């Protein structure tokens, strides 16, 4: 009953959303080159299903690769900032400034730097756009560790590494996963940005672009929906990991 509810409620919400969309297009009498309706989409999927599969895979693996890099380097950066006040003071303005630069402006820069390395550029962009929340959350998590937590192990002569492994690291996991959820969707945006903007791109972004150049509007909308589905899949994959590694932080629900 409980699990049924958990599935039924979001499914119902999505159905309502689709119905409203269909109704809106029908009521306004929009032709599908102004706004496609949900009923136009199955045809697009049926016709281009193999392109969708290939595109989804390309988009997904490059996003995940970029995200993995963001986790690694973001955590590293966060650790440096968390343990050293000097590093924190030095890096914060740089990071904030970098994060404020619209990433679309970096696409031509990367394209010139690494000509023709489309996969590399895409992964790099996914990484660049998504490491910031991870670095900040790990940094803050470590620097705000209450001194008592450190003292119970330090008074026993434990090394800094032991304290990090046994206390600081697990204690920052909830913040880390909070940031990872944001980063997962950001990485997705980064991947698509490169796919759509750069010529001869791959993945779902490129499929979107070809829909646009061929004036196939239902295809464009079908790509948007596919992107949304991929985003949801990635997000819930992170949620599942969070349950496994930081499930203790969840309060029992009554």
């Amino acid at each position: 009953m409980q699990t049924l509810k958990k599935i039924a409620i979001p499914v119902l919400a999505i159905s309502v959303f689709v119905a409203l969309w269909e109704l809106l297009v029908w009521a306004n009498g929009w032709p599908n080159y102004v706004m496609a309706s949900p009923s136009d989409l199955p045809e697009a999927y049926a016709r281009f299903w193999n392109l969708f599969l290939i595109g989804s895979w390309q988009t997904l693996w490059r996003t995940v690769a970029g995200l993995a890099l963001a986790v690694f380097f973001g955590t590293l950066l966060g650790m440096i900032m968390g343990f050293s006040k000097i590093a924190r003071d030095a890096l914060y303005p740089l990071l904030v400034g970098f994060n404020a630069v619209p990433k679309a402006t970096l696409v031509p820069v990367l394209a010139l730097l690494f000509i023709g390395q489309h996969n590399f550029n895409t992964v790099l962009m996914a990484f660049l756009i998504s490491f910031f929340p991870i670095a900040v959350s790990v940094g803050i998590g470590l620097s705000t560790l209450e001194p008592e937590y450190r003292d119970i192990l330090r008074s026993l002569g434990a090394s800094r590494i032991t304290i990090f492994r046994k206390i600081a690291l697990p204690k920052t996991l909830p913040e880390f996963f909070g940031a990872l959820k944001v980063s997962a969707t950001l990485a997705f945006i980064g991947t698509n940005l490169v796919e759509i903007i750069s010529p001869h791109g791959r993945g779902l972004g490129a499929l979107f672009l070809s829909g646009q150049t061929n004036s196939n509007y239902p295809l464009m909308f079908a790509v948007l929906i596919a992107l949304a589905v991929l985003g949801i899949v990635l997000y819930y994959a992170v949620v599942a990991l969070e349950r496994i590694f930081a499930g203790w932080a969840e309060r029992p629900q009554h």
Partner: protein
Amino acid sequence: MTNLIDIKGVTHAYKTPNGPLPVLNNLNMAVPEGEFCAVVGPSGCGKSTLTRLVAGLMKPDEGEVWLHGELVKSPRKTVGMAFQNPVMLEWRTILENVILPLEIVAPRMSKADKTERAMELLALVGLEGFENKRPSELSGGMRQRASLCRAIVHKPDVLIMDEPFGALDAFTREDLWQTMHALRAKEPFTAVLITHDLRESVYLGDQVIVLSGRPATTQFVLDVQYPGDGLRDLDGLYTPECADMLHVLRDQIKIAQGREPEEAH
């Protein structure tokens, strides 16, 4: 009998942007092995600094801290600490929390032995049956009980407590005082207890040290003569003997705070 803790002429100041802030000034303290020493004093007088010095977490500017005949220069494995915040690791069960110090101090000890040792203590403080619960499922008093178990699981020479009962309600606090006596009866240890509660200091302490206002120095030492023979019960707190001791301490605290003591009763 030799003293387990000897603090000789300790003076310490923290560096702040506005110049040095002296917190301890020529503080002396001696705790014989097995004794329970309660430390009281006005707020902010440097009591927590004292715990960090004994634990070897910091070094004094001047003076010496001796533990078991050795000069303390760095953290040692032979202390246990408990704070006002029980500092439970939320991702571990109660049992795993209690075992934590053993993982550092006795890494070679088998898992079964660690568990047995922890369970023995958990039973002593009345937490049997809760060992597999998460800290968030326990009340504040129960978490503090677990925290005490963790502080002595590795059989430290000294148990250092910084207001461990401060955040608990009055009845839970009294329960924990009795638990403290029960623990000492089974597992003799030397203890330093920082507290704001004079009744607590008299009920638990063999000696009560009153620190002066900042910078703290040893102002007064009370040798506790608890009424009754051996076992202390809570009713003893309401006897004239205890009332007298509490009055003496109260007057000393007033002096420490820089106020005149009330007329003698």
